[in-house]
């Protein structure tokens, strides 16, 4: 049944650098002659490798260790540790035997973008299947070697032995020793049942943290290619309206003549500078005289009024029951308009990339969330085949969605092609702030009704926002046209029906999306937990208002109306952590200058279940909200690494606090004016809440996302705590001191 080619090409193995290759098959006859592509060492040819082959996912080495290849990247969320736990579990190997490689379009499988909290949810199942398939193949080999049926074999730490006879054993490494499996994914290899998990479900400390702590971790910004020169992009400070791009009317190259080695690189409307020394490139970008076309088109007074007035494409997302009937004669109705801001990704380290166009392939190292997508877009901008470009991922700082990583990668590629030298491009802070693809602003009209006994009887949500661009600014600038945005498909974001009332049993519910054209507003793209903070802010305040109207404790009101057990369990978990005691909101108002309040929120992203409790203090004189403590509960199905999920809950809640209180991209009619951390303040150390994370573990449920799903609930809880503290409602965030003071001065709760 199985056989191993004894006539191994040693030369071939050496060329393969360890893993891979040559005449080894489970299918009987041995295809000695391998195709040219198969004979190449891993990484020699453009990918993606065939995802239906086990060899695309792992290699077992002679020393009984394994290299695992997957297509999701470490962004600081710990997914590499968790994915290796999944691999080790199915292979019955120990964490110390496992390693992975950085994503590379010549090497790693194409698993799409590392986005939408998909690393474990969608990234782990194919890896798990491949490892199970590999284990089955290895057991077949061991069966032949040890002369017993595969069913009599057990595996521990990559050592296969006959059950009850540990001396009769062979290691994975001895069985396959760097040769190819040549096994297709059948999908029939048995997966280990959760009851036998040893690694999955354990809070294994993250593998990347020790090197990060010691300063040994190689980050994108620390990558150095011999002979590299330095490039900077030259863009207007702050993007113009979407569609206007950046069009140079004139570029005075003589204006940088005094800077050693500095010169201008142009491609289409793209302008960049290069110099041998980094500081000279920085100075040249600053000093180069460029006159930009300026067609002021951004709404300079009221963004949200402009959104409401726009010619929208309207879609009914949810329509259950009959809201007309539901609202008619309802005892209590809560109704308000809510507004949310543009917010930025703004990675702490601005994006950086190094391109080297000297070889057969143009090799670009960058911090993209999607190596294959970045490869294809670079190829489009350069006008070459995608296979001519090789993108290698290097971790930079948390990017939280589509920041300027493609812009930096494309700029570096353009400059390296133009100069014939390796070029390192580092975005400046104002480039990253000013040319981000922002999380879109949101406008909502929300109303809901309750019966006197506290049953939610009707709910209606109208949401306005524009969609996304999936192309980089540099792409649009080089090609001289902005990639079109559409009200549907991948460039759209419609109101999330999960976060707009689905967590409650509501007989009559309608959710309507009003797609606003992006043209004339700002570039939009997915920002961590896209628009969920808005839904939490708008929808959960509406629910809270109904609880207040019927004089019920907000927790009790939610429990009464809850739409499912998993929502109920996260709600209870957060409330329990916070030691919540029943009390109607705003029933303990104080005349003190600093008022305390607590609030609840429920929300998620696309899957999973999130709940939050916030404890805050409002300084009525200064208008400053201090979020003192947050409790967050998350049910993400099977939490592969609960410790990682706890860390993600903490991070999400602190970031959501920053976005709830502080973050807002500002602009005038010419362009964006939020260009650094002073003009775009974020939460600071002294303002950070304490956070208590709670993971609701579900060993028998599929894993779903854990990187975004308590953010909406957090903003909701903070907003509801504000009402509890003050008796007033905030209808717009970020909840800045000016807006707080305005809300406090309003006569009624609704006028905030």
């Amino acid at each position: 049944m199985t056989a191993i080619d004894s006539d191994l090409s040693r030369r071939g193995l050496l060329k393969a650098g360890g893993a891979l290759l040559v005449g080894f098959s489970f299918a009987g006859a041995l295809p000695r002659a391998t195709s040219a592509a198969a004979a190449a060492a891993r990484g020699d040819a453009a990918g993606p490798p065939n995802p239906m082959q086990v060899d695309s996912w792992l290699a077992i080495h002679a020393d009984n260790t394994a290299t695992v290849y997957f297509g999701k990247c470490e962004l600081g969320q710990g997914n590499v540790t968790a994915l290796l736990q999944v691999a080790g579990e199915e292979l019955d190997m120990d964490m110390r035997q496992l390693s992975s490689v950085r994503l590379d379009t010549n090497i790693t499988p194409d698993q799409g973008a590392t986005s939408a909290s998909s690393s474990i949810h969608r990234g782990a199942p194919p890896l798990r299947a491949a490892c199970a398939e590999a284990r089955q193949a290895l057991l077949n080999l061991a069966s032949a070697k040890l002369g017993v049926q595969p069913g009599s074999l057990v595996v521990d730490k990559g050592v296969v032995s006959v059950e009850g006879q540990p001396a009769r054993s062979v290691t994975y490494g001895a069985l396959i020793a760097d040769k190819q499996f040549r096994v297709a994914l059948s999908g029939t290899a048995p997966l280990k049942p959760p009851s036998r998990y040893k690694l999955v479900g354990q809070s294994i400390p993250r593998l990347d943290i020790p090197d990060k702590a010691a300063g040994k971790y190689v980050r994108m910004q620390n990558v150095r290619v011999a002979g590299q020169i330095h490039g900077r992009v030259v863009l207007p400070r702050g993007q113009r309206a979407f569609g206007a791009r950046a069009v140079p009317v004139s570029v005075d190259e003589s204006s940088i003549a005094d800077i050693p080695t500095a010169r201008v690189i142009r491609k289409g409307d793209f302008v960049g500078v290069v110099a041998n020394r980094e500081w000279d490139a920085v100075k040249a970008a600053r000093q180069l005289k460029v006159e930009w076309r300026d067609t002021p088109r951004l709404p300079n007074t009221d963004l949200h009024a402009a959104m409401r007035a726009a010619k929208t494409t309207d879609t009914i997302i949810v329509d259950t029951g009959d809201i007309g009937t539901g609202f008619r004669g309802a005892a209590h109705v809560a109704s308000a308009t809510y507004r949310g801001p543009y917010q930025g990704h703004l990675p702490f380290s601005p994006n950086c990339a190094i391109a080297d166009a000297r070889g057969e392939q143009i090799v670009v190292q960058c911090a993209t969330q999607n190596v294959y997508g970045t490869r294809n877009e670079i190829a489009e901008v350069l006008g070459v085949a995608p296979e001519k470009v090789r993108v290698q991922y290097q971790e930079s700082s948390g990017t939280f969605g589509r920041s300027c990583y493609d812009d930096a990668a494309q700029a570096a590629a353009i400059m390296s092609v133009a100069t014939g030298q390796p070029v390192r491009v580092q975005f400046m802070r104002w480039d990253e702030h000013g040319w981000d693809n922002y999380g879109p602003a949101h406008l909502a009209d929300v109303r809901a009704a309750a019966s006197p006994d506290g049953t939610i009887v009707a709910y209606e949500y109208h949401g306005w926002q524009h969609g996304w661009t999936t192309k980089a600014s540099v792409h649009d600038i080089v090609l001289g046209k902005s990639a079109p945005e559409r009200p549907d498909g991948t460039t759209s974001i419609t109101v999330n029906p999960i976060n707009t009332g689905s967590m409650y049993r509501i007989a009559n519910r309608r959710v309507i999306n009003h797609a606003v054209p992006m043209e004339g507003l700002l570039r939009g793209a997915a920002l961590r937990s896209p628009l969920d903070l808005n839904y939490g802010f708008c929808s959960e305040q509406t629910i809270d208002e109904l609880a207040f109207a019927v004089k019920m404790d907000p927790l009790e009101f939610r429990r009464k109306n809850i739409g499912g057990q998993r929502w109920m369990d996260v709600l209870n978990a957060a409330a329990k952590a916070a030691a919540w005691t029943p009390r109607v909101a705003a029933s303990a108002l104080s005349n003190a200058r600093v008022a305390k309040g607590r609030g609840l929120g429920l929300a998620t992203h696309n899957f999973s279940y999130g709940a939050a409790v916030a404890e805050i203090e409002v300084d009525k004189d200064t208008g400053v909200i201090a979020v003192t403590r947050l409790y967050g509960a998350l049910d993400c199905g099977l939490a592969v690494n609960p410790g990682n999920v706890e860390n993600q809950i903490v991070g999400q809640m602190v970031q959501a606090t920053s976005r709830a209180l502080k973050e807002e991209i500002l602009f005038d009619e010419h362009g964006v004016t939020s260009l650094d951390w002073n003009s775009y303040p974020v939460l600071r150390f002294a303002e950070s809440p304490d956070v208590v994370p709670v993971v609701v573990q579900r060993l028998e449920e599929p894993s779903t996302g854990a990187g975004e799903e308590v953010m909406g609930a957090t903003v909701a809880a903070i907003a509801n705590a504000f009402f509890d503290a003050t008796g007033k409602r905030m209808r717009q965030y970020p909840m800045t001191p000016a807006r707080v003071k305005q809300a406090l001065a309003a006569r009624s709760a609704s006028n905030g």
Partner: protein
Amino acid sequence: MAQTLTIRVNEQDHAVEASPDTPLLYVLSNEVQLNGPRFGCGLAQCGSCSVLADGVEIRSCVTPVSQVAGKSITTLEGLPAWYAKQKRLAQTPPMHPLQEAFIDVQAIQCGACYNGMTIKAAELLSKNPKPTEPEIRQAMNGHLCRCGTYPRILKAIQLASTKMSEAKL
């Protein structure tokens, strides 16, 4: 124009080629090839580039290299040795107690803010071995984090402070 300048970094003298107005950060990254201090804003707003100059935290992104002549610069890479010298330890430990504490409480997410956080906290603990929570929050307030790791960094600093005082280090 570029000149040859001598700077002292992590107890070693380095002759570097740079124009005197070059921010120290670019010299540390490109000439000395260190990975601890990193570009974050270039505006002294975030703390990504922090180093110690004679034990005092400075922002290397806005400090011209000419201004550190005669000063002793310590980066993340040199922190364990700086700590050992300060505490008169016989041997340089592999890591500053703060770095160990960051691992113990799994404080790091992406780790981009980590250089500045460690440098600043090391400066704090060198001056105030047992800071209160408000003192820590105040001292660290000039260092931003985007992943939301402040609560765990706070815990790590408290843990390091406790361990250092228990060990009488």
